[in-house]
């Protein structure tokens, strides 16, 4: 446990226990302190990532790695303690360019949302803050653990650990249709997990076959040990009559795409967002959606690159549908929060498109878009929350001229929504343009079409955001909103870090790219040849 990463994962859990023991009045301060502490400690891990020195030239080089045997039973023991024909499950965590930026994002957004939940009206009613903050902190452990896990089994455990807290957070402290939203979220996500569980078993047994009975759940070994990669991507190995790699890729992909969420499994998201309390929406949009896309990058593509290249057209199509469909849905919304929720769907479409094309620019764009969206969407949800606290409704058409009543809040809001819109010099722009450029240059035959259609999404985005700003913040100030107090010190303090980051990422994207480029470059070493091969194969088919 001397490892700093282990502490980062478990401090929230300790905080949860403290919240449960301490008096209810102290709960919110303890949660604030815990999340802040985790944020500060996680910032200590910046070291190797800042200057790019963490890049070692081969995929799977980890920083702050910790590996301890956990479940090693069954079968017979090999010389190194691992089991042949039994279980080899390790506590194995570490950080690289994929997980590190998302971990920092998680600790930051969780801290801000802990702060954002300070003024809950529920605290005055009968729903105590103890349970809320305890669940909140358990959720943080789950998320951080999922990002850090390098053992697929551990990944799965943490992935599931997130479910229960989220279910109760939405179900107890949510809006009028909270129970429906909570169970919908639960069932959708569990459906994905179930597929992941099947894939988990299948991959374990395949790796055992490849390694002479010594199965492994190690995600890095899955991607780097030649015997295993050959087995996983073998054209002859089948699973229930399907090509093994493709079947696994599809099952894992469905598991992750539900979390992203990707059309047609996206319908839980608007419900969950609308019913969830503001801080939970912030976490959901800012962090939880990223887990799905992180799953693509950590599990799907490095492990099953052949299947990924062959199914790129399908993934890209889904991404493009998300972009366009999400944006159109936004245009139709009258509920402020639902609009922001659908905009998340649209924005996550870019991430998926970036993943689909499997090039370095695509992956960089996807990662950057995740971070940008991880900053802008919690900001938007918080902005909606601020106004909901005052107005107690979210009907876009009943607002107007809020900027006049609340100048400080109005400027922050404009910044936040412009960041989401993808205005140049703000964070959203870089991610989108990177993905679009990457797609345009991708080797696939359909890539240019996809890029052109997706670029149209930018126009739609501008459309719904500007229209929304016009309806809510501009125009004549309505009588009933004139007396609204401007953003309080706490609200400003929560918005401020996100606003600063939105600008910083937009103006100096280089520093953010530096955090992740090393690992992406390492991945490209083995992904590029496969993509080239797949493209060549498909062009032969098309030419012939």
């Amino acid at each position, binding site marked *: 446990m001397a490892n700093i990463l282990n502490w980062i994962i478990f401090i929230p859990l300790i905080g949860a226990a403290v919240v449960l023991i301490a008096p209810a009045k102290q709960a919110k301060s303890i949660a604030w302190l815990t999340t802040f502490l985790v944020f500060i400690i996680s910032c200590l891990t910046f070291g190797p990532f800042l200057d790019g020195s963490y890049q070692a030239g081969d995929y799977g080089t980890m920083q702050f790695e910790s590996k301890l045997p*956990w*479940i*090693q*039973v*069954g079968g017979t023991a090999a010389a190194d303690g691992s089991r042949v024909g039994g*279980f080899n*499950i390790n506590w194995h965590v570490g950080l690289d360019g994929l997980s590190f930026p998302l971990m920092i994002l998680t600790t930051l957004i969780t801290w801000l949302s802990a702060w954002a939940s300070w003024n809950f009206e529920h605290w005055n009613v*009968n729903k105590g803050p103890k*349970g809320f903050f305890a669940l909140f902190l358990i959720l943080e452990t789950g998320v951080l653990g999922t990002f850090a896990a390098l053992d697929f089994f551990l990944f*799965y*455990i943490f992935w*599931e*650990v997130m*479910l*229960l807290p989220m*279910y*109760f957070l939405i*179900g*107890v402290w949510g809006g009028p249709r*909270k*129970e429906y939203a*909570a*169970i919908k979220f*639960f*069932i959708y996500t*569990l*459906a994905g997990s*179930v597929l992941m*569980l*099947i894939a988990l*078993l*299948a991959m374990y*047994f395949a790796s055992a076959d490849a390694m002479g009975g010594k199965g492994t759940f190690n995600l890095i070994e899955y991607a780097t040990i030649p015997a295993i990669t050959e087995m996983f991507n073998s054209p002859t190995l089948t699973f*229930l009559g399907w090509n093994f790699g493709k079947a696994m890729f599809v099952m894992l992909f469905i598991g992750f795409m539900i979390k992203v969420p990707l059309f047609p499994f996206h319908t839980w998201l608007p419900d969950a967002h609308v019913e969830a309390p503001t801080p939970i929406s912030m976490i959901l949009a800012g962090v939880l959606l990223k887990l799905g896309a992180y799953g693509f990058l950590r599990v799907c593509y490095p492990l099953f690159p052949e299947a990924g290249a062959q199914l790129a057209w399908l993934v890209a199509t889904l991404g493009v549908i998300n972009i366009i469909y999400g944006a159109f849905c936004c245009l139709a919304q009258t509920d402020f929060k639902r609009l922001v929720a659908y905009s998340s769907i649209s924005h996550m479409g870019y991430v998926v498109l970036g993943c689909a094309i499997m090039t370095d620019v695509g992956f960089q764009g996807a990662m950057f878009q995740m971070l940008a969206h991880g900053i802008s969407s919690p900001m938007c949800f918080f902005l909606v929350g601020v106004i909901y606290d005052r107005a107690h409704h979210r009907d876009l058409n009943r607002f107007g001229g809020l900027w006049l009543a609340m100048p400080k809040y109005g400027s922050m809001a404009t910044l936040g929504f412009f960041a989401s819109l993808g205005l140049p010099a703000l964070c959203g722009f870089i991610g989108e343009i990177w993905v679009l450029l990457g797609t345009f240059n991708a080797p696939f035959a359909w890539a240019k079409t996809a890029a052109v259609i997706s670029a149209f999404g930018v126009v739609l985005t501008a459309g719904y955001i500007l229209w929304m700003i016009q309806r809510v913040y501009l125009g004549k100030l309505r009588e009933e909103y004139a007396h609204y107090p401007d953003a309080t010190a706490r609200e400003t303090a929560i918005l401020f870090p996100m606003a600063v980051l939105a600008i910083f990422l937009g103006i100096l994207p280089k520093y953010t790219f530096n955090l992740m480029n090393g690992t992406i470059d390492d991945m490209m070493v083995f992904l590029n040849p496969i993509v080239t091969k797949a493209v060549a194969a498909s062009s032969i088919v098309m030419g012939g």
Partner: protein
Amino acid sequence: MPTGLLILADMWMPSADDLAAIGPLWGFVGTLVAILVAALAVGRNWRVTGMLAALGAAVTGWMALRTVMSPPTNWAGLSPNNSPMFVADQFSAFFVLLVSVFMLLVIGMWWMGQNAGLPERLSRKGDSVEFFILLIGSAFGMSMMVSTTNLLMIVLAVEMASLPSYAITAFRKQHAKAAEAGLKYVLFGAVTSAIMIYGASLLYGHYHTLDLAEIGRTIRIEGAPTLLMGVSLFAFMVGVAFKVSAVPFHFWCPDVFEGAAIEVTTWLSVASKAAGLGLMLRIISVLTFKIASPETLNTLATAIAVMAALTCTVGNLSAFRQTNMKRLLAFSSIAHAGYMLMAVAIVWMNNGSPTEGVAHPAFSAIVGYISVYLVMNLGAFLVVAMVYWATGSESIDAMNGLMRRSPLLAVMMVVFLFSLVGLPPMGGFMAKLYLLYALWDATWYSLVIVAVFNTLISLYYYARVARAMVFSDDGQPAIRVPMVGQALATVCALVVLYTGTVGAGTLKAFSDDRAKDLYAVVKPGIAVHTAAESARPDSVNENGTLWNGQNSTTVPNNDGWHIGLAARKVDSDRNKNGE
């Protein structure tokens, strides 16, 4: 022939060693006697009776634990003709341990119920002597069920377990539902045991033996399955399927669970099903013992797999609309029996070459699952019972707002419920994972898929209970619950969390140990095979006899350690051949 076995073969009288082999079961017998004597000596005092029963369960459990903790040493079949009438290996010792520990917990529950201030009509303190005689009698029967591979013994054990169960189900005499439940149970039970005995008689008539292993060997020699074999085996298995409450023999389960007192429901939900599953494992593993490729038994495998899939699907789907907590948990127990039945479908894996010290995957999966199931199911019933004692209602509405009315109970219940779903980091997930792993290893992919999707379905109704407790608060007053009950629920929840996280490996290692060296055994002193046997021509064995040359010749068991069943077969065969 070795002297030790010769003596055994020729004498009907069991030796002291044999009696020692039954070991822990003496605990139950002694408790029965003690309770009767105490009733004569001090009269009908429920406290004394309860104490004695608890003490008896504890002593039995301790004796079983000693057997479990020490390697198998010294058993021999109690029989005139060498067929293993009574099996004492790690698995059966585990079952006695399970049953006695569970009985101890159920007695604790009963005790709390007596103190909960229910009307006499419901608690029936005065009849505690009869109650415990019946309870312990059924425990004895259940322990016997997993300790035998002889048709007659099986029938006896099943009846021994069933008859007291009928009576304790109807024990709340003035309670209309209890009487109805008891009647349904006994009618259903009578019909299924009639079919079972019919099946047993057919088997005996056809194969001229009561020994399942012998029957299995003949099946192997016969090659293709005959209609008679199919019919008689099926009829025989009906009685066992009834105990397990496998679909379509599950109809008694919800009614009985609803009508019986909650302690009795708890008892039946785990112990009775566990015993049925253990028996099923025994029957099939012995029938297929040493058969590497059981083509003739493929039908049986498929039948059990289909039954397992149906059982868990029907159980889960039927639970959806239940509003009585006991009925809901009854259907949940049917579903869980279905998951465990899946492991029965792979029981012949590794049967072809059982190796010393290697765990049998199906037995191991079931031991792991049932150990966790015991704890989480007991916990869930305990919470329901405590709510019932406080409110007098078993409806799901009685759970409303439990998070406010008794936060500790509600949190524990959430742990139990989602462990029943099979969600990490609870023990229910690890148990299910080990089961799925075994299924996958046996290439039963379809069963894995059925199991995981059932997990998904089951989420809905378990979450419904969680929803009632946490989301729907209709302002019922806070409840007072006994401290002991809270402590017990907390311990159960901690065990569930422990087996799901740090203790996951321990769980697997524990269940693997219980599944090793099945039927084995034999103390080092007795040489079970001789040079003459090793020199037997292999041609004798090629026709699918239960043993093969390899087992008696190449396995280095100079110290006399041997697969007991196989050894026994050698002897009985020699008897037949007139050697």
